[in-house]
Each structure stands twice: as C-alpha cells, then as structure tokens.
C-alpha cells in the first residue's frame, strides 16, 4: 500500500509544525522519517494516521484519499513511543482489542492473537499484564496489537526511544526481519540516524517542518544535498577548508601528508579510535580509524603526523 503525501501543512498557533511536505512512500517499503526534535516528523506521522488533521494538503493511501477520514477507518497500525498499553487488560486482550472492536468471533480472535504472539515471541506472556512486562516486551506487544487488524500501513512513532541501548539494538534487527517477513508498508519516525540508516530502505530527512532530502540512506550519506544533512547523518570534521567524514582521512608520516600537525588527543571506543590533530595552520581536525590501524601506526599523543585524504596520492 503506497502512501502519497501532497503539500501537507499543519500549524500549531502561529508556527508551522509541518510546512508544505510532499513525499511518496513506496508499497512494502520501510521508510524512516529522520530529523532533530521539533522537525515535525511526529506531526507528519500523526497526519498520516489521522490523529491530527492537516490545514492544507492531502494524504492518499493506496489510491484512496483519506485526508478527511477518521483514524478508525484508515486501516493503519500505530505504535507509540511509550507503548500506550491498555493497563487493565492482559497481553492477549490487548492484542485482540482491534478485532473485538471489529466484532470478530471469539474463536477467530483467539486464533489470530495466538498467531501474532508467536510472531513477536510473547506466547508465554499471553496472560501477563503490561505492568509485568519489560519495555522491549511492551513494545513487541504494541506491535502485535497494531498488526492484529491487518493494517495497510504501519506507523511507528520513535518506537525504541524509551528503551536502553542494548534492547534498542536488538529490536532494530528484529523489526527489520519482521518487515522483510510481512512486507507491510512501514513508516518509522526517529531522531537516531544510526537506527534510520540500519533499518530503512528509504530515508526522509526533515528539519523545521520541511523535507530537506529524501532517498536511499546510502545515497544521502554519500551525497548529502546540504551541510545539515551531511552533519546529521554522520560525523563530520573540517579539513583543508571543506567538510569531510573523519573516516575519509588517514594518518601518514609527515612527509606523505598534505597537511602536518600534532596529535592532541586519542580516544579509544571499542573497535574504533578517534584521533584529534591540531594542524600547523591552527585548525583542529579529527580522524576516525580502526584500533588495528592505530596500533599498527604506533601513534601517541604529542606525536607529529601528516594528514591526508584517503585515496589521495602525492602525485
């Protein structure tokens, strides 16, 4: 089910939370809407779901103009950052809620709930209450609940934001696998660029209510259309007057580098190392390299080194 957004605008008081946003989301894709806080990405998601109505513009899902349609009838699944569990119902009843509202038979609900709980690996928690689940389990329940109604589109509003780093990483992988299995058109809102890069096959970057760039994640990473996108999607540093990725620089002997400088700081982060170099002209830059490279080069603080772009030859 493809989604087509045309010129969506939404104002809160005088500020435009979403300002003339148009986008095409392909059928079956996993699209990440990425941006800093206040960029309008959550509002955009709410507009797609119908939980907010736009001041201008249209939302078309699979050819149907749903702009004026109540969220009840849009056939969308929505997951919230804080899971929004129905606390007084157990997991099974939570997951079956949408089907109960649609007046399916008890037998049908039971079968479908069991199917979904197996899918999200929560079968053993069917009778537990949300208060007894961990954060990750609650979000999996929320997903199962949203999927129960067989939605055309799945919308996720910073679904992993409230979870700790380890669980977040696990769920990211799990979500990607789930999506590959189910092929439901999914739109994910996040401010975590690593999450977006890892999981999405289409990226929409937003800032101050507008779409800044959209396309395949790697394309945006390698060919950013603006410095904002460049800096938002990955680390940057300034070298020889231009903005460049720290892992596109390398450290060599003073004679081989295009610029010379002194190492002022070395930070070891697990697999990688960040080396800060104060260049002879006074500016500071940093280089990202692997621990192996670091130890092979035998670098230490206060050493004089040469810096050059990777792939640059002195010829």
């Amino acid at each position: 089910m493809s989604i087509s957004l045309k010129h969506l605008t939404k104002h809160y008081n005088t500020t435009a939370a979403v300002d003339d946003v148009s986008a095409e989301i392909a059928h079956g894709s996993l699209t990440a809407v990425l941006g800093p806080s206040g960029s309008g990405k959550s509002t955009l998601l709410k507009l797609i779901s119908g939980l907010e109505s736009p001041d201008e513009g249209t939302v078309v899902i699979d050819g149907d103009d749903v702009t004026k349609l109540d969220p009840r009838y849009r056939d969308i699944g929505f997951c919230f950052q804080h899971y929004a569990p129905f606390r007084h119902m157990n997991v099974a009843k939570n997951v079956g809620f949408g089907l109960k509202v649609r007046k399916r038979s008890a037998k049908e609900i039971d079968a479908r709930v069991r199917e979904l709980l197996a899918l999200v690996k929560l079968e053993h928690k069917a009778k537990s209450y949300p208060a007894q689940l961990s954060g990750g389990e609650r979000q999996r329940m929320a997903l199962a609940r949203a999927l129960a109604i067989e939605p055309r589109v799945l919308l996720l509003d910073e679904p992993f934001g409230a979870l700790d780093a380890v669980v977040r990483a696990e769920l990211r992988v799990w979500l990607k696998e789930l999506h590959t299995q189910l092929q439901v058109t999914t739109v994910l809102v996040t401010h975590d660029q690593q999450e977006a890069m890892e999981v999405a096959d289409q990226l929409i970057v937003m800032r101050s209510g507008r779409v800044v760039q959209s396309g395949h994640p790697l394309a945006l990473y390698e060919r950013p259309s603006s410095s904002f996108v460049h800096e938002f999607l990955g680390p940057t540093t300034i070298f020889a007057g231009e903005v460049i990725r720290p892992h596109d620089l390398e450290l060599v002997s003073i004679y081989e580098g295009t610029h010379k400088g002194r190492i002022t700081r070395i930070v070891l982060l697990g697999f990688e190392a960040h080396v800060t170099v104060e260049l002879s002209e006074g500016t500071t830059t940093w280089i990202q390299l692997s621990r192996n490279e670091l130890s092979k080069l035998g670098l230490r603080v206060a050493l004089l080194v040469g810096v050059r772009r990777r792939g640059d030859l002195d010829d």
Partner: protein
Amino acid sequence: MSPAPSSWRRWPSRLSLPLLAGGGGALIVSYLSLIVLIPIAALVSHGLSVSVRTNGTGLEFWRWHVSIGLGAFWRAVTAVGARKAIWLSLWLSLSVASINAVMGVAIAWVLVRDRFIGKGLLEASIDLPFALPTIVAGVVLLALYGADSPIHVDLFETWMGLMMALLFVTLPFSVRAVQPVLASLDPEIEAAARTLGAGGVRTFFLVVLPSLWPAVLGGFGLAFARAIGEFGSISLIAGGIGRTTTASNYVYNLTQGFLWNDAASVSTALLLISLFVLISTGVWSRKYQRRTL
C-alpha cells in the same frame, strides 16, 4: 591538618533523630489517644456494655474477667425506631453515593476535557458543599425546598428532601476523587484505541472507565461514609421524629433523652457499618490499582 569531623560532633545528631522522632511520635500518639482512641473505646465499651472485673490485684490482667453485654446492644439496635433509621440511612446513602458516582464522572469529564466560559465557576462550585458548614446547608435547603419554597416544591419531611441534601453534601467527594485521575490519563492510550477502530463511546467504556474505576470506587466509599453520617444538613429538613429520621438524627434524639447507652449502641453499629464500607471499597480499589499500575 585535615579538618576531619570529630566523632563527638557527630554524636548528638545521630542521637537526636531517635529522640526527636520518638518524642514527636509519643506526642502524636498521646494526642490521637486523647481525641480519637479513648473516646471511640469509651463509645464501643458503653455500646456493647463491656465490663471488666479484676480478680485479685488490678495489675494481674490474666485474672481480668471481661464481659460483653450484647443483649443491651441488640435491643438498642433492633428497636423499631433504630431499625427504621438505620435502614433509611443505608439505602439513602447507597443511592446517593451511586448517583453521585455517575454524575461525578460526568462532571469530572467536563471539568478536565471541556472548555467554555464560566468553567471556573463550575470548578469552584464543586468545592462549595465541602466548605459550607452543614447547618448552613440545612437552613438553606429547608428554605428552598421546604414549606414556603419559592420554587413551589415541598420536600419537608420527605425522602426526596433528604436526598437533595445528601446529594449536595457528597458531591465534592465524588468529583474530586475522579478528577485528578482523569486529568493524568495518558492521551496516547485513547489515541491507540482510536487507531484500532474504537469510537468515542467504546473507547470510554472499554479503555477510559476501567482506568478510572479504582478512583470511582474510592469516591463511592467516601461519599457513602459521609452520607451515612451526615447530620447538620438534613436535621432541619427531616423535621420531627418519623419516617424521615436518619440514623444520626436518631442517635441525637437519644442523647436529648439522656439514653446514652442506647445512643452508644446504635453509634457502635453505625461505626461498624462505616468502617466496613470504607475498608471494602479501599480493598477493591487497591486491587484494581495493583493491576492497572
């Protein structure tokens, strides 16, 4: 030369806490005994005709002989007047607490979710029955609904009149019990229900109300306890001794006739009823809370 804190300077503060807390605690316990515990004990003791005989010296309490005169208690409580009065108070309070439980939710909803000119007035008027002295309410309600009523109703010495007074007096309890809970409900939960296909009414009954239920029960308990004990506001509109004599009125009449032991007996019965309702609604609402938190 390091200024390490000397141990003697630490000593008083470590000791002062137990002293302070202990002393304060003792004071509080003494006060509570004076004001509540001893009077209630005296009440129940007189009500149940408890008598203690000490065989041997007074301090050997294993030799004390405690007898409870349930006969007198029973007689006082099952006297015709008492039976009617207690029954009246019971069903009046149950009805009033129930009506205000429903209206309390409605009023709380409007206060929390609606916006209109004059809402502040509504908010303030909810507290009025609580802040208003009961006798003032009694005078006004009698004047308004009594024999010379300007709106041409005569509820003097009728159950309807009693109900109006009790609804008035218990309103704040029902509303204020529910209001803060409603205000702190997570809006995402209702949004989730909407995306899953539930409309306003279904969302209310399937999702909102269950979350409110512990508070509604708590409010019901408070309203019931207040209603069953209410005296000032209904004493006037109830008129003379008869069909509209509530339990507290009955006890008062007994004291005017200097029948203190009978008054104590009926009071003890009422005390037990109030405590029972409070404890059971408390238990129920806590059970719900445990599940939903």
